[in-house]
């Protein structure tokens, strides 16, 4: 960035504008990093799965990665705004620094943004791969999730059915998601997973809940009249409670 300065004999870093920008840059980087990451961490619901913790971590990390870039742009903007302003109906004289290009600045800028881009990609892919592997978990429970206007239905392996999702804590759950009518989107908010329910197709997603409690399922794809009300609770219970609930449920189904 520094090469934006005109090639004068003076050392460019001694210019007051550059000093001001540099100090602003440091302050703003810290401020934006803290604000950006805290904004996301504090707004997002408390995680109920490792996936969600991963997502929150990603958002926080990306905020910090973006902070220096945003801070540099804003610092230069503030310096520009505070150093030479002219009001009035007629234009000021042409600026003193008439530099129309700087190959070094261009090259630096582009390579830094390419590196940041690569960083975001690699971090994203690592987390993504972990999640993609979860679908092949062997000792997982399988739940068939069926969306229909405007409710969710859950079918469990032993024939139990319910309209409210029950999951055992600490056990991987694999969801086979489909729809009876239009497109819905199956979103367990606090667990950070989402999968569209497509009519005519079954798609998979997986998560391991790590906290006992009651969480939210919401439909995240406009599905008609009562889309806003297509939400429900997930009960994450201990493994024993889950087995018991499952038996009760399947007995209920088996009843003539």
């Amino acid at each position, binding site marked *: 960035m520094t090469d934006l300065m005109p090639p004068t004999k003076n050392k460019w870093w001694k210019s007051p504008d550059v000093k001001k920008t540099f100090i602003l840059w440091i302050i703003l980087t810290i401020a934006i990093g803290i604000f950006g990451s805290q904004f996301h961490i504090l707004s997002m619901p408390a995680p109920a799965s490792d996936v969600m913790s991963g997502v929150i971590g990603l958002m926080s990390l990306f905020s910090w990665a973006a902070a220096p870039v945003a801070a540099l742009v804003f610092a230069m903007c503030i310096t520009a705004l505070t150093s030479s302003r002219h009001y009035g109906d007629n234009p000021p004289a042409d600026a003193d620094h*008439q530099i129309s290009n700087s190959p070094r600045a261009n090259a630096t800028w582009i390579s830094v943004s390419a590196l940041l881009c690569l960083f975001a990609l690699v971090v994203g892919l690592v*987390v993504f791969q972990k999640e993609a592997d979860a679908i092949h978990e062997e000792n997982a429970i399988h739940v068939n999730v069926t969306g229909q206007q405007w409710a969710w239905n859950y079918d469990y392996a032993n024939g139990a059915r319910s309209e409210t999702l029950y999951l055992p804590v600490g056990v991987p759950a694999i969801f086979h998601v489909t729809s009876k009518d239009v497109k819905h989107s199956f979103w367990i908010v606090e667990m950070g997973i989402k999968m569209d329910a497509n009519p005519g197709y079954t798609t998979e997603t997986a998560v391991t809940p790590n906290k006992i409690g009651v969480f939210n399922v919401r439909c995240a794809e406009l599905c008609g009249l009562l889309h*806003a009300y297509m939400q429900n609770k997930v009960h994450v219970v201990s493994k024993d409670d889950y087995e018991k609930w499952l038996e009760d449920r399947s007995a209920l189904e088996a009843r003539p």
Partner: protein
Amino acid sequence: MTATMNHPAAAAGKSRKPIIEHLNIVTAFALGAISAFVVWRLALQFLPADTEVRLFTREDKITLLSMIAWFVGFMTGIGALVAPFRWVMGKDLSHDENMFLAGKDMGIKRYFRYTTDHKVVGIQYLVITMVIFGIGGILAMLIRANLGTPEGGWIHPQAYNSIVGTHGIIMIVGTIIMVTGPIGNFIMPIMIGARDMAFPRLNALSFWLIVAAAVPLIWAQFIGGISTGWSAYNPLAGQAPLGMNGYIMFICIFALSTMVAGANITTTVVRMRAKGMTWNRTPILIYGIVASVALALPAFPVFFLSQVMSGMDRALDTSFYNPAGGGSGWLYENLFWIMGHPEVYVILIPAVAALMEMAPVFTRRPLFSFNVAVMGIAGISGLSVLVWAHHMYISGWAPLLNAPFMLTTELISIPTGMLFLVLVGTLWRGRLWMTMPTMSIFALLWNFMIGGVTGIYLSDVPADAFLHGSMYVTAHFHYTLMGAGLTGAIAALVFWFPKMTGRMFDKKLSWVSFWMVQIGFNVTFAGMFIVGLQGQPRRVEAYPALFNHGNLVTSIGAAVIMSGMLVLLYGVISSWRNGVKAPMNPWQAKTLEWTVPNPIPLENFDVLPTVTSDPYGYGKEKK
């Protein structure tokens, strides 16, 4: 037209008043309405009943046929078919007729006719853009009013969904035409030193197609509305009420308009630049406009076809998207987003380029790294056609493709960063002439930075699994399309207002509206980011009490934006009517449009200019 003008001998005055002199907006609406009514009545009479019980099919046929009849009637009535008809007969329009079409000596009436003068078309575009934003803004206020309290409530869910869909699609259309319409038609030909567009009649056609398209969309509101959101995903669109046909017709006609305009503008820029205007001396705005319309050229035919298939699914019982008949909703999603992602850059690029055009003027120094600016625009355009499936990460369509699409999406941040470099580099150590457009450059950098960084979160597959379909997405794209795009477009309006209307834009009003809109905007969408992160889905008409505060903040911010926009509207009207008369070159800029006098003569230049230097040569004399 220009060719004919040069050979006035080819034309001879006719004693009879030619038919084109009778055609205007009144005959267009009349003929459109009559033909729609006739076809509707005939279809009602003669279309056979459905053989089995079906939702809508016969009614869909009737609605679509009437809408097509409206379209044909309207275009005939406005006079779009006069010249093609003449060609079929082996003749051409006479010189007098061409001058009539160009709106010579016609005063205010030419704005209500099929007028080919690019300056008239530019003003027509400007007015229709403002009307669109006005309606879209009112719909946005209705949405915010309904979301003021958690239980929502006072708008029926069906009507609410329709308002959301209509707000979405008309704002998209408004933002697509907001720069390439008014500025691209009015300013661009003068800027490149041309007498008119390459195809003046196509220019008029592209505008009147938008007017023709508007009616089916309004019509739709009375026959069930567009209850699917602007994306109109199938199979939801298949079971939506008859209003969906209005959406389908609207998109088809609008896509035609965009294709026509795209071909016209691209040809004009490639073929009609003034002598000496090499690509190095072509202003950056021209690059932005060309990139925008050139991106629309592959995008909108796909949109057109996707809606034709949607209409066939409804009216002819085909199964392109209907899973019961072997179709797939994923097909629609792919087609839609193959249009949909280039389309956001169709909106964004010309707005950013307009601010790049203004940056040298208001900092009194050359544009920093012109080549990088061009590379950035070209890079974004190239990559933007390869990223569409990031809208489908969690659709389940092709999980294996998520990683490649994540790569292409994140790569876009590199050319986007170049645009930032160019703007910041120009501002840095410039001598800032503080006007509302100058401040808009800073506002764009701020808003676009937030829109861009949140875009990187969204491009990340695991993060998107949480964020997709939430209010976070809504806030993100408003930051890019409105915070960056619309900010640039409003600045462009203020900047070129003296040339377009001959009067200066009221300074005080431009500042007041600027601060109201920018502050209101950031408040609105900060609230929306928060509720999105908390887990509020998009397009809901009610929400749990948890999201109460964020939504309240958003609703208040939206009211501030609306007030700011009203100030802007008042500024446009009052400045246009009795603003200070503008000098020829109020900003002391160096591009060609400032070398023509106010008011601009019919063919812009008496003698076509020759360009000998680049348009950003500030401070050159010092060296």
